[in-house]
């Protein structure tokens, strides 16, 4: 019973919040129980769990909405394509051109990019949209379900006709008592018959109620989505297309190919005779980098969500994205992981919520939690800066601490409110500079700002050097954009900045009035240039150029240049005021998740390295003091497999089993040798022999060695590298 209560209607995987019911849960453990069970600081465990879950729900909703918006354009054009091909199908069959033209199956090639993990979400929402607005008959096929034409058609029929079709194509099963009529026909023919009967009933039904409530077309097309075109066997695909083309007159089939690489694959997979049965149109989805950009913009560069990531964490996530998979889904999963991890590991994360809520919670903090605040490194350094009187108060009085913390929290939230608009403004300025010294994307700039004082970096200097040379129209356009950004932000402190920027804009416009004076100046400029043209000697040319430069440097700035300089200086001051790294802020640990190494360990695991580590240095995992060794030496107390592994590292491609055994015995009996001379008999102890055999077979199971026929009594090594 409990299970059914906890089931959600959502199709996606994830954690869901369930309002605690009045009845006590006795049976299975919930996610919350697991969350609480492993906590180090149990303070406010359930509150933390619930906060994290509701926060994640909000974020997830936001991402889903965002994906919908991003895909809208693609989906709209696809739907239009479907409608058009459908109307083509319904066109008068007697028309001359229709009679002579061979009827092709409409097919849309959807280029979705190499991030295969994201395709599922896109295609799922696509089929939902199609179901809602175009046709009730949508089937999606995956290559791994369709190794042969038989399975493909079976899947198709089951998806379209529901259970009517059954799994009858298997000839050896004798389970049908009620012999369905359709079973005896070829699958495609029965599909066709099904379609006719369905449309017939639809027709009569729509005649009965002539209202336009029926949103689908009279003859809705049958859409078949082939999710991963690349992985289908060409033969299966070709057969499927040929069979469907036989019925193209009766069944309005439309194919959608999901393509990960390039549309060239169509020509590579289908022969001309088959591709000439198709009427292929191309559709391109949004690029994944663009997708990521919007996700970061909407989830991280906003004050909507209290949770924040430190620069390093964001770097880890973007690196995985850019270097490894291009998958936005994985990025979002990483984000979810960081949210959960943050609330799990940071006791004070209970305060990681919206400001008003946080203030309430702050009031009711327990003494232990106050102690936790005092332990925060950022708070400790803050205390150090206070005078001794308040230092004592902060460290002893809980209520005083809470009051102080309230102010600090407010300060932190205000910092974010200012940080984001200013960051966006700075990005507006730097995103169009040549060579992008501060990055092309806003996330790069964001990372740079969070890591250290950005104005101390070399890139920043060179960017500002370039900004001082910006042309007037560019400058004005950027200023205009900045004004818009600041207008939309709610921060109070920035209203002065906004005014200042508007003033700049007004002054630029004033400059336009006084163009004449500038023209005059320009005339002055042209004279040396003319002189320049006259010179032919290289030496002279260089000399005049140098002179020109000198004169320009010493020359008094004209109005525009002075104003430009002013704008740039103002921007610089803005950056210095608002874009300080979050680490300098007190209590930042509450909102910022900064454990990049945990994230990396979980999301970008290195199984080979871990295995090597475990076998080479067992102390690392077993934490047994005896095993602690300083490299090179193999302890005879280590597990047998570790000893065998260490020894095998010293060998070449082929390992002589007997030599290996000898070495193994030597290591294992290293300490015993001194007190007993029985080894002189050179008879290998049976127990050691057995231990060796077990270690070797364990290594074989792990895939480090394999038996070989090249040489007797040898095994081949499958790893490379040695000590």
């Amino acid at each position, binding site marked *: 019973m409990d299970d059914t209560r906890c089931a959600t209607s959502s199709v996606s995987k994830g954690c869901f919040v369930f309002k605690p019911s009045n009845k006590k849960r006795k049976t299975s453990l919930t996610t919350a129980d697991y969350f609480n069970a492993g906590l180090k600081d149990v303070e406010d465990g359930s509150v933390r769990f619930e906060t994290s879950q509701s926060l994640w729900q909000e974020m997830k909703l936001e991402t889903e909405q965002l994906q919908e918006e991003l895909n809208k354009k693609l989906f709209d054009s696809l739907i239009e394509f479907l409608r058009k091909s459908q109307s*083509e199908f319904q066109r008068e069959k007697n028309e001359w051109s229709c009679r002579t033209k*061979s009827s092709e199956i409409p097919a849309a090639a959807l280029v979705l990019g190499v991030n295969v993990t994201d395709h599922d979400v896109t295609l799922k929402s696509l089929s939902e949209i199609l179901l809602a607005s175009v046709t009730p008959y949508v089937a999606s096929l995956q290559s791994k379900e369709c190794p042969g034409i*038989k399975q493909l058609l079976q899947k198709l029929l089951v998806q379209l006709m529901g259970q009517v079709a059954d799994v009858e194509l298997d000839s050896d099963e004798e389970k049908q008592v009620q012999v369905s009529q359709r079973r*005896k026909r070829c699958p495609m023919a029965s599909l066709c018959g099904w379609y006719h009967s369905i449309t017939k009933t639809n027709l009569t039904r729509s005649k009965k109620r002539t209202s336009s409530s029926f949103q689908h077309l009279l003859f809705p097309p049958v859409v078949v989505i082939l999710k991963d075109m690349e992985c289908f066997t060409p033969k299966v695909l070709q057969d499927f297309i040929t069979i469907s083309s036989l019925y193209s007159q009766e069944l309005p089939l439309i194919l959608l190919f999901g393509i990960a690489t390039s549309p060239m694959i169509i020509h590579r997979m289908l022969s001309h005779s088959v591709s*000439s049965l198709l009427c292929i149109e191309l559709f391109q989805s949004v690029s994944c980098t663009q997708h990521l950009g919007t996700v970061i913009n909407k989830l991280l560069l906003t004050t909507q969500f209290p949770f924040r990531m430190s620069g390093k964490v964001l770097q880890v996530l973007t690196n995985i994205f850019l270097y*490894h998979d291009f998958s936005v889904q994985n990025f979002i999963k990483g984000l979810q992981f960081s949210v959960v991890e943050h609330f799990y590991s940071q006791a004070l994360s209970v305060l990681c919520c919206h400001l008003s809520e946080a203030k309430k919670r702050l009031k009711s903090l327990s003494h232990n939690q106050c102690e936790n605040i005092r332990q925060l490194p950022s708070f400790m350094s803050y205390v150090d800066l206070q005078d001794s009187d308040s230092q004592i108060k902060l460290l002893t009085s809980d209520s005083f601490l809470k009051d102080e913390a309230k102010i600090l929290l407010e300060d932190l939230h205000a910092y974010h409110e200012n940080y984001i608009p200013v960051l966006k403004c700075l990005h507006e300025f730097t995103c169009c500079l040549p060579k992008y010294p501060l990055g092309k994307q806003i996330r790069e700039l964001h990372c740079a700002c969070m890591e250290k004082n950005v104005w101390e970096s070399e890139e920043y200097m060179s960017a500002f050097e370039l900004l001082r040379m910006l042309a007037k129209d560019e400058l004005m356009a950027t200023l205009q954009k900045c004004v818009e950004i600041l207008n939309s932000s709610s921060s109070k402190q920035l209203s002065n900045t906004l005014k200042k920027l508007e003033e700049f804009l007004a002054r630029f416009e004033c400059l336009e009035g006084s163009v004449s004076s500038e023209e005059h100046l320009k005339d002055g400029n042209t004279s040396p240039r003319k002189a320049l043209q006259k010179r032919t000697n290289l030496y002279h040319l260089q000399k005049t150029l140098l002179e020109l430069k000198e004169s320009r440097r010493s020359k008094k700035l004209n109005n525009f240049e002075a104003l430009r300089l002013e704008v740039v200086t103002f921007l610089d001051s803005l950056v210095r005021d608002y874009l300080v790294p979050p680490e300098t802020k007190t209590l930042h640990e509450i909102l910022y998740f900064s454990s990049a190494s945990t994230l990396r360990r979980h999301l*970008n695991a290195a199984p080979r390295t871990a295995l090597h580590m475990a076998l080479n240095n067992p102390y690392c995992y077993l934490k047994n003091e005896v095993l602690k060794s300083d490299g090179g030496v193999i302890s005879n107390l280590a597990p047998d497999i570790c000893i065998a592994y260490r020894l095998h590292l010293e060998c070449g491609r082929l390992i002589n089993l007997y030599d290996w055994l000898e070495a193994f015995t030597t290591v294992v009996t290293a300490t015993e040798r001194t007190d007993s001379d029985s080894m002189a008999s050179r008879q290998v102890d049976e127990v050691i022999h057995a231990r060796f055999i077990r270690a070797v077979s364990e290594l074989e199971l792990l895939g480090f060695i394999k038996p070989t026929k090249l040489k007797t009594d040898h095994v081949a090594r499958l790893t490379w590298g040695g000590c």
Partner: protein
Amino acid sequence: MPFFEYPDYPETHLLELEKMVLCRESQISTLLSVFGEREHFSFPSIFIYGHTATGKTYVIKTLLKIFKLPHVIVNCIECFTSRLLFEGILSQLNSHCSTLEKEFYFREHCDSFNDFVRLYKQVTLDQDLKNQTVYIVVDKAEHLREMDVNLLAGFQRLQELTDCNVTVLFLSEIVWEKFRPSTGSFEPLTLNFPNYNKGELQRILSCDHPPKYSDDFYSSYINILLGVFYIVCRDLKELRHLAALNFPKYCEPVVKGEAKESDTHRLWKNIEPHLKKAMQTVYLREISSLQWERMQQGDKETGQLKGLSAQAHVELPYYSKFLLIAAYLASYNPARTDKRFFLKHHGKIKKTNFLKKHEKTSNHLLGPKPFPLDRLLAILYSIVDRRVAPTANIFSQITSLVTLQLLSLVGHDDQLDGPKYKCTVSLDFIRAVARNVNFDIIKYLYDFL
């Protein structure tokens, strides 16, 4: 006076046939003489072959239909298992006479050829087909070879096995020599449908002229069309399709009143470049017929439409690019030369005496060679500037490259021990990828040394 003279068939039917089927007179007369009269036993199996769109299916279909001979047509691609094939034949036979009962289907199981023979006899008895020849047409018969072994031979000897008056017609694009089963074969009567020549194509295509225009006008259009397309395409179906697609463009000057129907030269000048463009795009299915039609109607949006092949660029994650480059190098460089490319102090190795004789031929001519995973990773580590940790992500990237068909797995038996791969991308593709990450791949390729 009809062309075909067979006293046993009614003359009106013969005349109708002559009108429906063009340029296949000799084949039809052979077939008719083999078929004989309705109740006569005919040759047990007839094998008809010829290229695509040479009228095999069409001729047989119209012939059987016009003379109302009892027949069954099955397509081997559609009936991909022998059971579907058998049951398809039987249910079609069942519904053959009882036209009223269209929704009647064959209800019994038919899994083996033995069952088929038994049930066939029963059905012919039920349907009262004993005293006339039943024709079973097996279209796309080349697929029979991939099905059960006894199928082909069994169908050839169906007359003998069932002891009924039945003739099986095989239609295929492949010659009989490629079929001949090893046991139990019965030599069928083979009949070739040769390709249509230019004149015949012209005659057939001119037949379906649109009602609005005169016969001559359309046939002169067909003449121009064949002039352009005959070199590359003799497929009648495709030509018909192209003719229908491009005809509106041909008529355009006439419709606008700029030219008369007889103004052939002007019309030719108008259509010729257009047809040439069609050959490069719509004929190869680079752009779809619908798009082509929209383009003709002067849709501005589709004006700069790019074909499917134009977008060959594939955006890949950073390490995937390097993995692909490493795979390409491993596939096209001999393993012995790795030292020379990837070790710092390799010394000078002369190309000529360093390599064995067979390695001297260009590796790009020989195609990609398989390489083990270890080699791929070793090359990867040495071409990437920074340190690459062997994380799970790197390994999963190799797998996803395989699913994207940029790499292919060679030999599946040894998955765990040492999988081997081949790189399947072209030189142009890899050069584009390498340029993207500032890697001069030519410098690392042995062929270009």
